[in-house]
């Protein structure tokens, strides 16, 4: 029971587990080494679990094994069945589970501190330091849980992606956060009420923090919750004096933080402005001059036009966005690129960091459709090539190709790095209708350019028609 008399072998095993987790992330530096990395992760987890079970007097092994088996079945079935387009929801759901597990562990430790070896020597009170760490862990865990549940509902469409703005929400949220900090610091006096107040308040604040954040900012939210789930694990690691948990928590925490930073930078938004929420709430009204823009002339293209022009092209750059995911057009798109390649056309894919609903979402979808990853390029690497491109083929993206980000200071997306599609000789823009706009709710000059042809249809149907025309 007394783990904390630190058996050096146990400590060493947890350290090895921690190193395995570092190697797991390290492996992701390239697709070639990534699968080995994932295996390291599994090995690390196995070491951590087995070490814990063999070094404790386990009074209830059958129950534990059943619990693991239940979790394993649910997890494996979900992992197998989930569609790649639903990955953001899945990740949000998984985050909520980590958060809830952290809360449950915290509460269990509070109820049975003896088992965790966090009692004052000879006393019945929990160590002061451990109580504060525990309070912190439970608070972060609860915020992660309720925040992730809201993020899941928004991503999964159970809840509108539009921001929900409560009056005085900034004051409310700041007060609640301050209250949590104060309660946690007061928790060195062991009062059960205080503990439950921290738990309850943290659940509420997680909910309040995420409801004002709109769908377009979800990549940041998902990364941020990723980070929180890490900090929750680290805080519990402090409570339980467990190196594997601390190392992992730190890794996951920094990983999520870096991803949030990358996403914010790709939208030219500050982290604070994303968290404060409300972006996209005033869509429509903000773009202004609605009547004027309705009358701007634009050209409608057909699948045959697109097929003909692309067949004759030397190189085509495809820019996929969230619309491609919604229409499940990735497989048809890959077929299109294969047909084009047969005609000797060079095809490249250009991915904006915030395309889709989570970091790297588009890359996974293209990988699913068997697009080789060396045909897929990041914004910085390909942006200079538009000047030489014969065709820019935009499918389901909008804001990331909007030149207003470069020129119009008043635009809500001003300063966001965008693709220079306007430099391409011809632009095909697949869109469902002329009415809808991007998430930022701004008009896009690319629609009205001389070299642009709008292909108005469902993305998948349009690409399939192009494929038919190409095959003829």
């Amino acid at each position, binding site marked *: 029971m007394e783990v904390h008399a630190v058996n050096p072998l146990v400590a060493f095993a947890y350290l090895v587990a921690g190193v395995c987790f570092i190697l797991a992330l390290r492996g992701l530096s390239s697709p070639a080494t990534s699968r080995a990395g994932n295996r390291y992760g599994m090995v690390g*987890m196995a070491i951590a679990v087995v070490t814990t079970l063999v070094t404790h007097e386990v009074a209830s092994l059958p129950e534990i094994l059943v619990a693991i088996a239940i979790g394993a079945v649910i997890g494996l079935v979900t992992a197998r069945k989930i569609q790649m387009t639903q990955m953001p929801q899945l990740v949000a759901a998984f985050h909520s589970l980590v958060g809830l597990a952290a809360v449950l562990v915290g509460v269990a430790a509070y109820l049975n501190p003896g088992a965790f070896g966090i009692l004052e020597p000879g006393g019945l009170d929990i160590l002061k330091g451990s109580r504060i760490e525990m309070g912190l862990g439970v608070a972060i865990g609860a915020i992660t849980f309720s925040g992730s549940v809201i993020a899941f509902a928004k991503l999964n469409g159970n809840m509108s992606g539009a921001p929900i703005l409560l009056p005085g929400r900034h004051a409310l949220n700041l007060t609640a956060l301050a209250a949590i900090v104060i309660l946690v610091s007061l928790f060195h006096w062991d009062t059960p009420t205080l503990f439950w107040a921290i738990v309850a308040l943290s659940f509420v604040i997680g909910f309040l923090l995420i409801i004002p954040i709109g769908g377009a900012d979800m990549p940041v939210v998902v990364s941020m919750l990723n980070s929180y789930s890490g900090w929750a694990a680290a805080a519990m690691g402090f409570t339980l004096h467990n190196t594997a948990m601390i190392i992992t928590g730190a890794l996951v925490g920094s990983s999520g933080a870096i991803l949030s930073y990358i996403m914010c930078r790709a939208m030219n938004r500050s982290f604070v402005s994303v968290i404060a929420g409300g972006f996209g709430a005033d869509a429509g009204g903000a773009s202004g001059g609605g009547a004027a823009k309705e009358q701007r002339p634009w050209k409608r293209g057909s699948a045959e036009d697109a097929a003909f022009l692309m067949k004759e092209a030397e190189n085509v750059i495809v820019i996929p966005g969230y619309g491609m995911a919604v229409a499940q057009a990735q497989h048809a798109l890959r077929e299109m690129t294969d047909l084009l390649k047969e005609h000797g056309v060079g095809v490249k894919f250009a991915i904006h960091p915030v395309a889709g609903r989570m970091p790297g979402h588009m890359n996974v979808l293209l990988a699913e459709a068997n697009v080789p990853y060396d045909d897929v390029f990041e914004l910085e690497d390909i942006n200079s090539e538009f000047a030489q491109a014969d065709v820019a083929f935009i499918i389901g993206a909008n804001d990331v190709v909007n030149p207003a980000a470069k020129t119009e200071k008043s635009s809500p997306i001003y300063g966001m790095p965008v693709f220079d599609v306007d430099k391409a000789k011809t632009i095909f823009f697949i869109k469902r209708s002329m009415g809808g706009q991007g998430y930022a709710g701004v008009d896009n000059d690319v629609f009205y350019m001389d070299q642009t042809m709008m292909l108005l249809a469902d993305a998948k149907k349009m690409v399939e028609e192009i494929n038919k025309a190409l095959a003829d």
Partner: protein
Amino acid sequence: MDFISILSIFVLACFVGYYVVWSVTPALHTPLMAVTNAISSVIIVGALVASAAAGVPGAKWLGLAAVVLASVNIFGGFAVTERMLAMYKKKDKAPAKKEAK
């Protein structure tokens, strides 16, 4: 372990995390999130301690519930990462273009 040595491990691990994560290629950011999610379920260690201990039934059942949740994450997270990573392919050396449509 005293607080300061734990803190040292934590701070150093944050630095390791910082450098390792920056080296992750953006194409793999989704698998990165899935796998970090799986490994943050190492919190199962705490859940196991709680469920293994005799004495306080409430703590035990909470622990077991946490074991279920964390296991969903561990198995689901690693499996879905594996599934995603298996899809990333390099360009075929011998272009076999005519696949089944």
